[in-house]
């Protein structure tokens, strides 16, 4: 039984690492964006902190969000829509192993993106922090994958196998931009600043910014509660989708 959980996670990790459209783009895009906005515009600062440091937190959040939304959203939609999930369901696979394996992939790739971003920031962006602060920010960013796993699973439970990657993009990129992950909130127009609190990405980034001692909005507890709320709602949506799927008409 325990072996099934371990093997499911190991094989999922192998499978997704070899799937270049996943492994290259989830790691490559956040790094590339950080180079453009964080490093090239590094000397500019927002308040007391350099852009290179500020955007390390927000692109870290962006990277983790991407790794998770694709692993769950596109991953589940394709396997569900193409009948592979059905084969697994007919087998004695423990159902939780399937989700845990997707979680392991999300956390692993999230951790990889964050680590590489930190290296870029430290080496080329001149970002300096105490060891404890680096570690805390790293942990906050990687742990942020959890509510986005639920959002991804909700997309994966409803989207068709062909449209899912596009739908994930349509969710992922606006969440990044409007949540203040691409550039500091203060630089965005006022109307957009009003939209942000309705987005989970905003709450995620704000928690990471607190660790940097950057002036942030709201309280940490409030952001955690908001993320937990988003997580629960979308877990419910995903559950409805999975139940509905099981009673489709077959000849």
């Amino acid at each position: 039984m325990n072996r099934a959980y371990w093997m499911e996670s190991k094989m999922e990790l192998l499978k997704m690492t070899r799937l270049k459209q996943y492994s290259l783009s989830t790691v490559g895009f956040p790094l590339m964006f950080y180079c453009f906005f964080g490093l090239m515009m590094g000397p500019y600062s927002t308040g007391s902190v350099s852009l290179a440091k500020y955007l390390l937190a927000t692109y870290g959040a962006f990277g983790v969000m991407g790794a998770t939304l694709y692993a769950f959203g596109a991953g589940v939609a394709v396997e569900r829509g193409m009948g592979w999930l059905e084969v697994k369901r007919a087998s004695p696979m423990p159902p939780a192993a399937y989700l845990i394996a997707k979680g392991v992939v999300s956390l692993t790739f999230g951790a990889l993106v964050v680590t590489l971003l930190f290296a870029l920031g430290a080496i080329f962006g001149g970002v300096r922090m105490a060891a404890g602060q680096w570690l805390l920010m790293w942990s906050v960013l990687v742990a942020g994958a959890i509510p986005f796993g639920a959002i991804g699973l909700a997309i994966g439970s409803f989207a068709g196998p062909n449209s899912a990657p596009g739908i994930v993009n349509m969710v992922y990129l606006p969440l990044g931009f409007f949540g203040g992950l691409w550039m500091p909130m203060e630089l965005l127009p006022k109307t957009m600043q009003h939209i942000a609190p309705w987005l989970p990405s905003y709450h995620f980034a704000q928690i990471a910014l607190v660790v940097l001692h950057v002036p942030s909005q709201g309280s940490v507890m409030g952001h955690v509660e908001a993320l937990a709320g988003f997580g629960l709602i979308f877990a419910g949506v995903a559950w409805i989708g999975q139940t509905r799927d099981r009673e489709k008409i077959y000849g």
Partner: protein
Amino acid sequence: MPVAELRGVTKRYGAVEALRGIDLSIGRGELVALLGPNGAGKTTAVRILLGLSKATSGTATLFGHDPASRQAKLRRGALLQVGKVPETLKVKEHIELFCSYYERPLPMTAIVAAAGLAGIENRLFGDLSGGQKHRVLFALAICGNPELLFLDEPTVGLDVESRRALWAHIRGFVERGGSVLLTTHYLDEADALAQRVAVIDQGRIVAEGSPAEIKARTKTNGLEDAFLEIMKQNGNRLEEVVR
């Protein structure tokens, strides 16, 4: 005790009645073929026996257990129709993973031999030919050393050689005492493999018996003609009822 049994099973999807009271049993060491036109209810019956969908009324059991229970799942294997299998895992890795789900899986060498996969264990699934992909799915169905196999149109899209090779593997499984529920559109396949045939149409079993009995009853030579004859008679009977 039969290894798999449906008793008075009905299945309704809203206004659509997919199954209207089906009785079917599969004994130990028996290969039963379930035949019927598209939309007749074959897949619904299989999905209920696999615990993937619940009967509206009636009972379904595997080895006396609920088909969705772990006890039932550990003793069966299934080759289902699947559009796309993850392509970036190797043949060996797919098999290892499915083996980990079972308590007493077959050894890798036995699985590779029984499914005819020698020499391609280290290839990625995406690089395989159609016939090889099918054999991997067959390997995943038998890797847990099941007593009962579900084969849902196992040879669709296979060339003659691959089809015959898969038949040989299926026969080998039955000779070792396994039971099989086979659904197929190829009636020569049912004729070649099945001890018993059940014909399903519009959610009911309209004929059941050995291939020879069915041919004798319809006074036909081939199972394909017998099948068409049964469909014709069944259509007539329904028309009478409507009148």
